[in-house]
C-alpha cells in the first residue's frame, strides 16, 4: 500500500509541476496577477507530494519491503538502519527521486525568500523551475520508477553495494545534488531575466546568493567524494580524473567563474551577457554530468548499470534545455551591450582573466572526458585518456589563475593607481618566492621548479587573502569593518591557498609501496617502519573480515597502531578493503590489505601522504567563505518576512 501511495504522490507532484511550469509563465506574459500567484502554491504543493513519495520509499526500506523491486535490489534484512536510509539514494531510481526532492526544496526556498522580487519575475523563476521539474518527474515515472513491484516478493534483498555502506557516502550524494541542482536556480533566474527582457543589475544581485549557496554545497559534495574515494576505494588516491568526477568538477569550475562574473555584473553592470551564458552553461554541465553517470556510455568506476532508454531520455532533455536556453540567449543577449568602460589595470580585468582561465580549464576537462566518446564515434578505436594528461593540461590555466588571484583581490574597481598597488604586492611576492624555495628544502630535503612554484603560489594566495581581514581587525576606531562579502571572498581564497599547498606537497612527497607481508615482518616507508603484529578474524553485522594489526614506528619510537581490514560481505559475497589510516595534521600514514598470498602472507599497500588533509580542509574553508559571503547584509534584504502570497501557500499545504 505504502509504495502505491508513493507512486500516486509522484503523479500528483507531476500534475502540480505542470501547473507550476505553465500557468505562472503565461501569467507573467499576460501580466495576470491571479495566474502568477499560482507559482508559489503549486511549488509548495509539489514539494509536499515529492516529500511524501520520498518518505514512502524510505519507509519501504526501513520496513524491508522486498515486494518493491528497488528495495529488494538494494537492501537486505541485516543492513544497519543508517544504511537502509542511505540506500534510498544508493542507486539510480532513488537518487533520481532525491534529485527531484532537492529541486522542489530549492524551488520552495526561492518562493519563500523572493518577497523582494517583482511578482512577475518571481513567477517566471518558479515557472522555469517547474518546467525542469516536469522533465525530471517524467524521467522518473517513465523510465525509472522506484516503486515498481516485484512479484513474488523476495525473501531477502540483494544488499546495498558494500562500497556504499559508509557514512561518507551516505552524505556525499545529497550534498553533491544540492549543489548540482542549486545551479538550476541560477539558470532559472537567467531564463526569467531573458524572458522579461529586463536585465538590469538587480538581476545579478538576486542571483548571487543562490549561486554562491549552490557552489558551496557543490564544493562540499565534491570534497566528500574525494575523501570517500581516498579511504574507501582503498587505494589512497584523492582524485582520479574519472569521467564522473569530471562531471561534477566541470559545473564547479563554471560555477566558480559564474560567481566571479556575477560580482562584476552586480557591481558594475558589465559582462551581462557573459554572466547569462555562464549560468546556462553551469546548469547544462550539471545535466551533462547526470547524462554521463546514468547512461553508462562512458567507462567509469562510478557508472550505474547501462540502460539506453534512460540515456536517450536525459540526452533529449539536455538538448531541449540547452537549445531552448541558447535560442532565448541569441534573441536577447545582443541588446545587452554595456556602455561602461574600465581601464586595463582594474578589478574588472582580473575577473575577466579569472573567467577566461576557468572556462579554459573546464573546456580542457570536457575535452579529455568526451574525447574517448568522440573518437569512438569517428571510428578511431576505443581509447581512454589517462590522469597524466589531465594533470598536465589542467596546470596550464591553473598556474596563471592562482598567481593572478592574489593580485586581483587587491585591485580596485574601474581603475587602480599603480604606485600603492606595486607597494602592496612587493613584500608578499618576495615572501612567497623565498618560502616557496626554502620550505620544501627545509622540511622535505629536496625541491624542483614546479614544486617551488606550487608552494610559492600557495603562500602567495594565503598571504594576500589575509591582508584585508587582518587590517580590518587592527583598524582604528570608527573605521569601516570589512564587509561579510569581502570577508567571505578572503576566506574562500585562503581555502584555495591551503588546497594548493596540500596538493603540491602531497603529490611531490607521497611515498607508496606495495609489498608482501607476513605477521612479524616489517617494511620501511620513508622514515616510518610498519610492522604487521598479527592477523585476526573479525565479525561485523553483515560481513566477516580479516584484520591486520599494524604498528607504526619512527626511529624505534611508537607512533600509532592501525587496523586495516579485508571484509567479505555475506550477501553479495563481495570483498571490500577498509584502509587503516593514522591521521595527523601534516601527514597520513595509510595501510590497506590487498590479497591473501598463501604461506600466511598478504599483499599490503603502505603509503606516506604528507599534508593530504590540507586538500579537504582547504575545500571546507572555501565553502565556509561562500557561507560568509551569502550572509552579507546586501543579500539579507531578499530574505525578508514572507509575503502574503507565500504564507497562504504554506497554509494550503
Amino acid at each position: 500500500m505504502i509504495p502505491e501511495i508513493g507512486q500516486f504522490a509522484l503523479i500528483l507532484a507531476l500534475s502540480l509541476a505542470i501547473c507550476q511550469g505553465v500557468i505562472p509563465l503565461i501569467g507573467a506574459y499576460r501580466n495576470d496577477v491571479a495566474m502568477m500567484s499560482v507559482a508559489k502554491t503549486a511549488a509548495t504543493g509539489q514539494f509536499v507530494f515529492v516529500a511524501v513519495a520520498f518518505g514512502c520509499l524510505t519507509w519501504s526500506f526501513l520496513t524491508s519491503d522486498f515486494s518493491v523491486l528497488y528495495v529488494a535490489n538494494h537492501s537486505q534484512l541485516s543492513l544497519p538502519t543508517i544504511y537502509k536510509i542511505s540506500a534510498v539514494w544508493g542507486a539510480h531510481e532513488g537518487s533520481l527521486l532525491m534529485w527531484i526532492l532537492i529541486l522542489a526544496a530549492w524551488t520552495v526556498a526561492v518562493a519563500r525568500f523572493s518577497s523582494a522580487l517583482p511578482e512577475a519575475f518571481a513567477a517566471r523563476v518558479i515557472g522555469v523551475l517547474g518546467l525542469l521539474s516536469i522533465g525530471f518527474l517524467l524521467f522518473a515515472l517513465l523510465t525509472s520508477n522506484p516503486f515498481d513491484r516485484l512479484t513474488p516478493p523476495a525473501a531477502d534483498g540483494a544488499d546495498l553495494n558494500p562500497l556504499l555502506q559508509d557514512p561518507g557516502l551516505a552524505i556525499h550524494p545529497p550534498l553533491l545534488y544540492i549543489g548540482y541542482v542549486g545551479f538550476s536556480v541560477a539558470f532559472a533566474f537567467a531564463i526569467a531575466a531573458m524572458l522579461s527582457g529586463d536585465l538590469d543589475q538587480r538581476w545579478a544581485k538576486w542571483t548571487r546568493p543562490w549561486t554562491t549557496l549552490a557552489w558551496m554545497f557543490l564544493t562540499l559534495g565534491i570534497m566528500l567524494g574525494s575523501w570517500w574515494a581516498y579511504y574507501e576505494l582503498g587505494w589512497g588516491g584523492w582524485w582520479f580524473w574519472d569521467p564522473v568526477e569530471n562531471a561534477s568538477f566541470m559545473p564547479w569550475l563554471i560555477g566558480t567563474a559564474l560567481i566571479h562574473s556575477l560580482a562584476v555584473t552586480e557591481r558594475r553592470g558589465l559582462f551581462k551577457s557573459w554572466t547569462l551564458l555562464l549560468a546556462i552553461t553551469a546548469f547544462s554541465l550539471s545535466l551533462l554530468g547526470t547524462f554521463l553517470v546514468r547512461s553508462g556510455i562512458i567507462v567509469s568506476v562510478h557508472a550505474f548499470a547501462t540502460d539506453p532508454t534512460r540515456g536517450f531520455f536525459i540526452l533529449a532533455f539536455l538538448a531541449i534545455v540547452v537549445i531552448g536556453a541558447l535560442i532565448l540567449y541569441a534573441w536577447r543577449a545582443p541588446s545587452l551591450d554595456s556602455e561602461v568602460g574600465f581601464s586595463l589595470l582594474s578589478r574588472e580585468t582580473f575577473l575577466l582573466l579569472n573567467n577566461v582561465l576557468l572556462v579554459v580549464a573546464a573546456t580542457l576537462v570536457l575535452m579529455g572526458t568526451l574525447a574517448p566518446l568522440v573518437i569512438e564515434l569517428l571510428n578511431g578505436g576505443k581509447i581512454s585518456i589517462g590522469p597524466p594528461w589531465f594533470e598536465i593540461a589542467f596546470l596550464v590555466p591553473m598556474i596563471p589563475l592562482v598567481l593572478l588571484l592574489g593580485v586581483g583581490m587587491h585591485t580596485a574597481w574601474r581603475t587602480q593607481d599603480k604606485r600603492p598597488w606595486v607597494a602592496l604586492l612587493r613584500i608578499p611576492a618576495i615572501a612567497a618566492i623565498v618560502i616557496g624555495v626554502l620550505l620544501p628544502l627545509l622540511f622535505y630535503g629536496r625541491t624542483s621548479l614546479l614544486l617551488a612554484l606550487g608552494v610559492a603560489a600557495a603562500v602567495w594566495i594565503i598571504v594576500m587573502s589575509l591582508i584585508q581581514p587582518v587590517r580590518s581587525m587592527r583598524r582604528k576606531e570608527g573605521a569601516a569593518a570589512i564587509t561579510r562579502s569581502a570577508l567571505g571572498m578572503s576566506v574562500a581564497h585562503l581555502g584555495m591557498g591551503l588546497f594548493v599547498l596540500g596538493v603540491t606537497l602531497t603529490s611531490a612527497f607521497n611515498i607508496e609501496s606495495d609489498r608482501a607481508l607476513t605477521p612479524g615482518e616489517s617494511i620501511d616507508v620513508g622514515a616510518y617502519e610498519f610492522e604487521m603484529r598479527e592477523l585476526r578474524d573479525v565479525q561485523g553485522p553483515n560481513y566477516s573480515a580479516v584484520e591486520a594489526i599494524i604498528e607504526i614506528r619512527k626511529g624505534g619510537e611508537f607512533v600509532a597502531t592501525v587496523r586495516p581490514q579485508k571484509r567479505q560481505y555475506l550477501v553479495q559475497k563481495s570483498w571490500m578493503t577498509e584502509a587503516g589510516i593514522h591521521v595527523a595534521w601534516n601527514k597520513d600514514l595509510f595501510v590497506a590489505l590487498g590479497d591473501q598470498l598463501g604461506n600466511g602472507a598478504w599483499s599490503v599497500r603502505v603509503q606516506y601522504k604528507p599534508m593530504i588533509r590540507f586538500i579537504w580542509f582547504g575545500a571546507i574553508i572555501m565553502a565556509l567563505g561562500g557561507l560568509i559571503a551569502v550572509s552579507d547584509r546586501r543579500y539579507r534584504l531578499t530574505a525578508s518576512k514572507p509575503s502574503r502570497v507565500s504564507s497562504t501557500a504554506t497554509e494550503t499545504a
Partner: protein
Amino acid sequence: MLAVGLAVAGIAIAAAFTLRAFQDNMMFFVEISDVVAGDYPKQRNFRIGGLVVDGSVEREEGSMDLRFRVTDMNCELPVSYVGVLPDLFREGQGVVAHGRLGEEGVFVADKILAKHDENYMAPEVADSLAKHVEDKTAPLREGVTECNPQ
C-alpha cells in the same frame, strides 16, 4: 564579447599546448583476438579486457607475482601482474588491464581496473565479448581451445 573572444583564444592556445600530451596519454583498447593476431600498438601501452578464465589464476606462494588468462570467448591471452588486485577481481568475471605485450606473448599489466559494481561491465569489454558469443545467456565455455584471430 571581449570575454568570449579571450576565452576562445585561451582554449585554442591551451588545446594546441596539450594536444601532444593528448596523443602520448591516449590509450587504445585492443580486443584479445587482435592482440593474439599481432594487431596491437607496438612500443606503447594499451588496454585489454575480457573475462578471467576459470582456474587460470596462478600465484607463487607468498609472493605478489600473479598470472592469469583473459578470454574474449574466442582467443585467450596470458597476463602477468605484480601488485595489489582490486576487490572485484575474480575468476569468471570481467577485467580490464593496462600494460604492454612482453616476451612470449604475455601481457605485462601495470594496472588492473576496479569496478564500482559487479553487475557493471565496461562497455568495450561487453562489445568484444558479444562479438564472439551468439547466445549471450550461454554458460561460459571452459578453456576455449580453438582460436580464430581475424
